[in-house]
């Protein structure tokens, strides 16, 4: 009788271990692939869609809102660097738009000979340019992480159009970061 009970316990214990293992393996599979699927979807579908729209302001606001969550994709085994290149570029553009508005306010104030207003607008313009430069620098640093093997001075070869596009956006990130830093 005792043997029978012990055998039953072993039997259920083995099933329990197997079930837990299966659940764990499945969850790992889902987590691994969902990260890759999510990044793949954003890269192949969402980014081209956003770039296609003519409402630049909406794209920039979206990037500004989501930029912070992009690095967290690394937690589900997806490489977020290429996405960060374009999201930081777009959120940098957001700050640039605001800087441009402040520059217009500065010019208007100068035209109206309003010194205080012009000073205020200029301070804000420089703050936004500095913010844009910081975001664009982050984008450029992500480019270095996304393509660590790429040469610094030669022309690189890419396997896909997407890669070529991210590379160019990353280079623009670097260039704009320098220009906006100097202007701020």
């Amino acid at each position: 009788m005792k043997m029978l009970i012990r055998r039953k316990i072993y039997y259920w214990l083995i099933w329990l271990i197997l079930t837990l293992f299966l659940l764990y393996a499945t969850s790992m599979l889902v987590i691994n692939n969902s990260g890759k699927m999510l990044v793949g979807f954003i890269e192949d579908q969402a980014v081209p869609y956003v770039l296609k729209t003519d409402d630049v302001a909406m794209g920039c606001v979206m990037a500004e809102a989501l930029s912070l969550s992009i690095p967290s994709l690394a937690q589900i085994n997806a490489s977020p660097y290429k996405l960060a290149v374009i999201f930081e570029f777009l959120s940098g553009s957001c700050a640039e738009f605001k800087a441009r508005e402040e520059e217009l306010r500065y010019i208007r104030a100068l035209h109206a000979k309003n010194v205080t207003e012009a000073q205020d607008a200029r301070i804000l313009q420089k703050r936004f340019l500095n913010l844009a430069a910081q975001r664009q620098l982050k984008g450029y640093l992500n480019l270095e992480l996304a393509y660590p093997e790429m040469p610094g001075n030669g022309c690189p070869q890419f396997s896909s159009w997407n890669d070529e596009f991210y590379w160019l956006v990353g280079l623009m990130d670097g260039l704009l970061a320098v220009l906006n830093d100097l202007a701020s």
Partner: protein
Amino acid sequence: MAVVLSLNCFVALAETKSLCVFDLLGANGPIYAQMKDYKIAALGWGVDLQLKPYINEGQAAADFKAGLCDAVSFTGIQSRQFNSFTGSLDAMGALPSYAHLKTVISTISSPQASPLMINKPYEVVGIIPIGAAYLFVNDRSLVSEHEDTKNKLSSIRIAVMDNDPAQIELVSLLGTPSLSAAIAEMYKKFNAGLVDVCYGPAVVYQAMELHKGLGSKGGVIRFPVAQLSLQIIIRQAEFPEQFGQNSRNYALSKFNKAVQLAQGYEHRIALQWWLSISESNQQRYHDIYRKTRLSLRDKGVYDARMLRIMHLVRCKKNPQLSECTAAEKE
């Protein structure tokens, strides 16, 4: 009351004048950005400045002379032809630190010193530091910390700016071959390996990608060759009477920020690139610079009054210096 206060912020009448701004990056550069702020301040003093960007310093000076600009902003080297007193501020090795520079600029920006800022028809209305100039070398063994560089210097090629007689005089004193070039060309030649040494503020290290010229063996000598400055000059008769003093006070108020910016660029050069030089070599450099300054003073390039002020500041801050007791004083 609020209405009265807000009305005070408006300038009822402002004369329109043109300001030619030299910036290597044109309207996108940091100097042009500073001048946008200056434009606001000038509006408060009753002048509406229209900014014109120049990427060639010589052209800006020529246009100012020709009357195409009412005011101009460029480096101290270029301003020497309009006012040799303030143009001597960047004399070779004259000011070893930013603290020395601040003392000098504060002194000469005071209302009592205003006659020195005027050289009719021109008036210097602002001096803003760009940063200390350092020597960039492509081979650090040229200035090894424990060696005497006396014999080595004669064989190295130094790039000098073609518009600065001071640099040409210095290399002729050193007896080294030199290659004169315009400001932007100089760094291209250094990067291409055509010259062994070039000089400039820390900001050019990144802007002109000097790491290419430094290679794996080069470095930056931690010894300020000169204190470079940005100077604003006006045609005095074209501007309101108090404009000059207001502007000098404004420029002085921007001193700390400008120095912070320059130091920020210096910190961006990694520690491994900085080269210290031995005490004996430092003394030798001081002697060479001093001889250069005296020679240029006698030739009329440097202004004796400015050299005297800088000498007094150096001796005030460090009375132990040998030049303070030397027979031939600046």
